């Protein structure tokens, strides 16, 4: 027991030696957190603010088209969701390549004629960013479907009316009746949101999107923080493990000692970011809808849950580094497992986006368990169940790490 304590003490001394580096890491973490946070703020992740920006290219000088696009920007409900910006083709392509637009809509000259005469043989081109297909591109497809349905259903009604007139001998009335029905349908299309009566219940039992990403982003940083912990595992020696074993300190005691020191090492790296977050919240530099006007108190209240998550992630990182033969492979394992598990547990896209089964898998993973614990803590719910799952994962990782260490000692 005395030697186990001495081993822990030696590991803590190592941590102290590495502390200056860890302070640098703390600063790096601040930058790491602030980049995606700034990204989310700049994107206007706050609900109701984010809109799909669409560049409009082509000749819209025609009175019909001009009226249509003006209506889209002023009276149509889609203005809450889409921002149309008229620009030249070169400007649009440049803006699209810079990621400033979700898509560029190109209206060909013959489009209006094609619609008016019901040929529909000229398509509006919707150019998507050249990168891999993303959610924004998929959503663009949905918007295009909606627009197509509204136009083609209106066209069908107008052409049906025109054909009736031709068939019933009222060809001379076609012009004025078309105008009248057309205006009527435009009016009805513009007021289509009136088909639904919306009642918003509020989010009393769930996190706001801002709070959701606040929690997940911090958890993601904790999860990937092991990448900066490389230096802790850099000089791992089997000979030391063997000598400790000969000296009466078994694999589990060794792992426990290293784990506690490593946890301290990671926590030291998070002191600065936590302090900055506290100051930021206290001075109301930023806030979350749920914490408006409450300062840093709620953040300090959920800090223990983040610490518990960090404790489990530290065990996970230790396990992966023990599993990998060499620190280099250990780091890459941490990255692939961290990003993969984080993705499945909704650290990037909200978990609600996934299928039921995938959500269940994501929730069972250590990342999901940590997210649930923090979420329960955030919403001041009973955290017992989630804490137990986190603890079980922590224990599993430590036991697995100890089993691997034991095997390493036995094999030499």
């Amino acid at each position: 027991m005395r030697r186990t304590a001495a081993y822990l003490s030696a590991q803590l001394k190592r941590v102290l030696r590495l502390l200056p580096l860890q302070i640098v890491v703390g600063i790096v973490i601040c930058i790491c957190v602030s980049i995606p946070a700034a990204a989310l703020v700049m994107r206007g992740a706050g609900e109701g603010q984010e809109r799909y920006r669409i560049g409009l290219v082509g000749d819209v000088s025609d009175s019909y088209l001009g009226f249509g696009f003006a209506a889209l920007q002023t009276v149509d409900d889609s203005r809450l969701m889409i921002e149309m910006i008229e620009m030249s083709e070169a400007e649009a392509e440049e803006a699209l390549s810079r990621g400033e637009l979700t898509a560029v809509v190109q209206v060909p000259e013959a489009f209006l004629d094609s619609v008016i005469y019901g040929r529909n043989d000229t398509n509006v081109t919707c150019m998507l960013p050249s990168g891999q297909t993303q959610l924004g591109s998929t959503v663009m497809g949905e918007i295009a479907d909606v627009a197509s349905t509204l136009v083609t259903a209106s066209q069908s009604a107008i052409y049906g009316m025109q054909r009736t007139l031709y068939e019933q001998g009222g060809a001379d009335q076609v012009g004025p009746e078309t105008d009248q029905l057309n205006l009527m349908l435009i009016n009805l299309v513009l007021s289509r949101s009136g088909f639904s009566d919306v009642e918003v219940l509020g989010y009393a039992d769930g996190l706001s999107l801002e709070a959701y990403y606040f929690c997940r982003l911090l958890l993601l940083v904790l999860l990937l923080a092991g990448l900066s912990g490389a230096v802790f595992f850099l000089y791992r020696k089997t000979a030391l493990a063997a000598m400790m074993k000969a000296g009466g300190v078994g694999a589990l005691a060794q792992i426990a000692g290293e784990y506690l020191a490593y946890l301290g090492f990671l926590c030291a790296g998070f002191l600065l970011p936590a302090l900055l977050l506290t100051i930021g919240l206290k001075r109301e530099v930023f806030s979350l809808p749920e914490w408006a006007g409450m300062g840093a108190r709620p953040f300090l209240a959920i800090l223990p849950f983040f610490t518990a998550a960090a404790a489990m992630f530290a065990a996970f990182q230790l396990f992966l580094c023990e599993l990998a033969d060499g620190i280099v492979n250990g780091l890459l394992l941490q990255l692939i497992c961290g990003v993969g598990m984080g993705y499945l547990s909704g650290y990037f896209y909200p978990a609600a986006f996934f299928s039921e089964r995938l959500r269940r898998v994501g929730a069972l993973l250590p990342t999901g368990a940590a997210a649930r614990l923090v979420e329960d803590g955030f919403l001041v719910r009973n955290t017992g169940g989630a804490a137990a799952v986190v603890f079980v994962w922590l224990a599993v990782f430590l036991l697995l790490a100890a089993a691997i260490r034991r095997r390493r000692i036995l094999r030499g």
Partner: protein
Amino acid sequence: MNVFNFLLRGWLIQKRLLGKYSFLLLLVLPLLFAAGLGRFAKEESGIASIALHLPENDPVADQVGEKLLGRESVFRFLSCASKEEALELVETGEADAAWLFSDEMEEALRELARKRRVRPLVKVVERRDSVPLILAREVLSAAVYPAFSYAVYESYVVEELGFAELDKETIHRTYESAAVSGSLFQMVYPDGSTGETEDFHYLQAPLRGILAIWLTFLGIVAALFFMQDEERGVYGRLSGIRRFFAFYGVGTMFLLDGTVILLLCCRLGGVFTNFWREVVCAAVFACCVLAFSNLLRLLSRKPKWLGTLLLPLGAAMLALCPVFFELQYFRAGKLLLPPWYYLYAVHDDFYLYGMAVYAAALILASVVLQWLQSRIGS
């Protein structure tokens, strides 16, 4: 060194790498992830879940229901037998919204069409309003509108045009004969292609980005591996420029495995486009990653410092490259990251050439740096 020697050394490095079970694990894990994602993406999911309650035996409700439930969508629709069931799903958080349709949809729609008015036909109950739910309501409007526009047409023909003697069937037949269908929009990428794969799902979207980051890290791992060997004196007898080539040899072996896995993952995950396009993009990307890792190796000089770079580099790649979202700012930062070029190059030659130029610039920079370091060293 002749070709045989070169191949032999390459094979020996491969043997060393593939002999490590954790390296094999590193190659297998992305494959499992991609295959799992490809499979799970086919399951029912959506950016918002909507509980639907449609009245029974109502032709309009049936038509709307068919439009909503019978199509591919980014939304997940849950059909509910009663309004209470739909509301419960919202209250428990299983659905983001409930759409409760009027009991007499057909009658109500005809009445509105006759009056040329739009009035609520659907009660929408939401947990919290959001952009996805606004979009969902647009989808709802688009589902209701065809039936409504038809009702408007019907009443217009009878009441405004005065053809009251026409029976419903004739009116319907005339409408059908003139009806227009199809999409007015065509989705294209700058290279003219129309989409990655037919069965592409938005959940698969980040796969290529994750793999690109993974390959970049594999390059850096190659640099760490090489630096550790350097510390052991493995390359002690090699002069500056020879050591430079030695790194490229070792790195190529790492990235050869990685590139094959990347291509396989794209195939398994359902984001594979054109064979040659993929191969060329991946090959240029691997070269770019190799040059990037070499420059980082030369700049950091010690494994400890290169290791410390991993976290900020990972965060920068996740934030600046279009993996999960597209950031409109920090363009200068994006230009420094190889995955950013790769993710655009898949659909755009401009970025493919850009990536090649960037790789050449990196190689040039590292040659200069290596030369400077060897001069200072000597």
